[in-house]
């Protein structure tokens, strides 16, 4: 696979937008939203309960793919400076979005701190101690060291983009070397315990040194890697291995929820397999994502007729405006959880909140599409950069 790469710049994929990316990123955004509401019956339906990897892998891979697609073209057409500037502007936008979400989070926490009291939870309420030092907390949040629960993905994304310009250059000119370098960083991160420090303790929940592998792999696929893999992806052996692995992961996951099944997992297997580390993107998780992707591209071709079906448009729309919809999803998860905990909600309410959240995400995505369309048509409107939105609202 690596040997087949040459020193010549790799070709950009032909054709326009691959709607499959939008579709799966949209679905991933919905799943991330659902998973972020802790007490929610609906998140029994999300993929994390049926295998090792979850929506985060899908999101990061597709983000790497689309980032390379969009900025790779910019780098070829307008040079490294312009492309880098645009990547960094995107990182800045994500940073601003992250801080905006942090503000909303702080408001919710401050409200809970001032209204909730119960001697039963005296210990748990210590988590609010950080409100006693707002100066430290807010500063630590600004430098991305303090990240409340469920606010770890955007800082990861920011880090990935900050280091993306040189990686993109390398991916275009020496794709095999770039991928090997990325894998090397991943291995070193595992062996040397590399991670970024967090506040007040510990390290980043999504280790950028590990997760960059998935992002770079996505970018590599976008810049011609997918074509290089296409022979392997057509092979029956690969398909059989992928399906076998998915089935294996499904049964292992089942033992987490159905206690009596645990005895069928032999001791040597569980001591070799566990823990399946999300922070450092465990190899088992990465492999699970690859298997999922291999099976998906096999059965859902680029020109899959369903991609034009109106039933899939809501997910595709969401995937096309991923940053906005991701942030909205984090906010809606806060809001939904707030409703559930303030007014206590049973399964019916949880289901309604989940559905309402997804509807709001879809409505917002449609609104953004409409805005863009309107601005594009208005006579005074500036001409759009040629590649804007091509692959899903930029990165």
């Amino acid at each position, binding site marked *: 696979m690596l040997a087949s790469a040459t020193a010549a710049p790799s070709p950009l994929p032909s054709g326009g937008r691959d709607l499959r990316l939008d579709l799966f990123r949209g679905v991933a955004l919905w799943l991330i939203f659902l998973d972020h509401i*802790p*007490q929610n019956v609906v998140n029994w339906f999300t993929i994390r309960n049926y295998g090792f990897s979850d929506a985060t892998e899908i999101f990061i891979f597709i983000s790497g793919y689309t980032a390379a697609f969009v900025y790779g073209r910019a780098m070829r057409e307008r040079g490294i400076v312009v492309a880098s500037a645009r990547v960094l502007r995107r990182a800045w936008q994500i940073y601003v979005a992250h801080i905006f979400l942090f503000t909303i989070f702080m408001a*919710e*926490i401050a409200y*809970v701190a001032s*209204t*909730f*009291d*119960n*001697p*039963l*939870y*005296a*210990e*748990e*309420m*210590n*988590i*609010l101690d950080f409100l006693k030092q707002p100066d430290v907390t807010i500063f630590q949040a600004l430098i991305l060291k303090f990240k409340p*629960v*469920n606010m770890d993905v955007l800082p990861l994304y920011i880090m990935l983009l900050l280091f993306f310009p040189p990686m993109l250059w390398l991916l275009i000119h020496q794709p095999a070397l770039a991928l090997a370098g990325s894998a090397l960083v991943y291995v070193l991160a595992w062996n040397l315990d590399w991670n970024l420090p*967090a506040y*007040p*303790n*510990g*390290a980043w929940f999504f280790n950028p040194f590990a997760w960059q592998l998935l992002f770079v792999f996505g970018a590599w696929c976008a810049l011609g890697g997918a074509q290089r893999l296409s022979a392997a992806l057509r092979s029956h052996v690969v398909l059989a291995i992928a399906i076998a692995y998915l089935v294996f992961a499904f049964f292992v996951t089942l033992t987490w929820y159905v*206690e009596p099944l*645990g*005895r069928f997992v032999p001791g040597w297997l*569980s*001591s070799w397999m*566990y*823990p399946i580390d999300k*922070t450092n993107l465990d190899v088992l998780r990465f492999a699970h994502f690859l298997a999922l992707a291999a099976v998906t591209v096999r059965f859902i071709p680029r020109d899959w007729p369903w991609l034009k079906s109106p039933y899939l448009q809501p997910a595709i729309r969401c995937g096309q405006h991923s940053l906005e919809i991701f942030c*909205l999803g984090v*906010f*809606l998860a*806060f*809001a*939904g*959880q*707030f*409703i*559930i*905990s*303030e*007014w*206590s*909600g*049973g399964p*019916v*309410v949880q289901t*309604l*909140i989940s559905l*309402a959240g997804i*509807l*709001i995400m879809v*409505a*917002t995505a449609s*609104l953004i599409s409409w805005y863009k369309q309107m601005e594009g048509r208005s006579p005074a409107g500036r001409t759009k950069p040629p590649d804007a939105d091509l692959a899903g609202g930029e990165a």
Partner: protein
Amino acid sequence: MRFITALIVTIALNCLPAWAAVAEPQPDSCDVPASLLESEIDLSRATAEMKEKHRLDISVLGTGSSAIPGPDGAHFAYPAQLEDALKRQLSGSEIKVTAHIQPKQTTANMLGSLEKILADDKPSLVIWQAGTADAINAVETEDFRASLEGGVDKMQTAGADVILMNMQYSPRTAAMLDVSAYADVMRHVAQQQNALLFDRLAIMQYWNDIGTFDLYAATKKYDMARRVHDCIGRALASQIINAAHLDALRMQTTR
């Protein structure tokens, strides 16, 4: 503007939970389904102590959630309630539950005093409540795992069976404090090292779901905390009696 729309829709949903809350049943007892308490692990050392000496020495190691605030809190907290429940059910045997509660201690910190506790109490069973302080302090889960494994090892070497007790189910703080990763580690360590898991998280969630307790409720009063601890004490007692096969012993001693 999108966020305003979002807010309006979510607020519009408010009325629904109110109906749901009214419709929920309110059982009097705090029974726990057997599936949440059963385990394939035997507390053989506790069984032996009961058989040979007709006594049971239990040490409880824990942090803030093993206590209730206030001067008479210890009297109502689950370690004392456990002792009462065991004494009621195993009358004729001497039951001693010694609680070592150190608020805010992470699991690594608790290891410091472990050897002295084991030497002083000579327990045949240690109940180790852990994880909450680690989650609050964002201790790395691998460090948490190592501390737990080390502690369980010491307890077992000192001749005690071990019950690991995980966190409380706390829906109000769930948005700020995600304990699930730590709960997973505890489940796994228990499995690997033949310790029993008292799944306080699942049990309290069950009580909340069926309406035994409204754990979302804000209150300054101690009633609910005391009732919850009483129920935890009783659930622990039945788990211990089951896993140490003391039902049979109870029959013998009362005969």
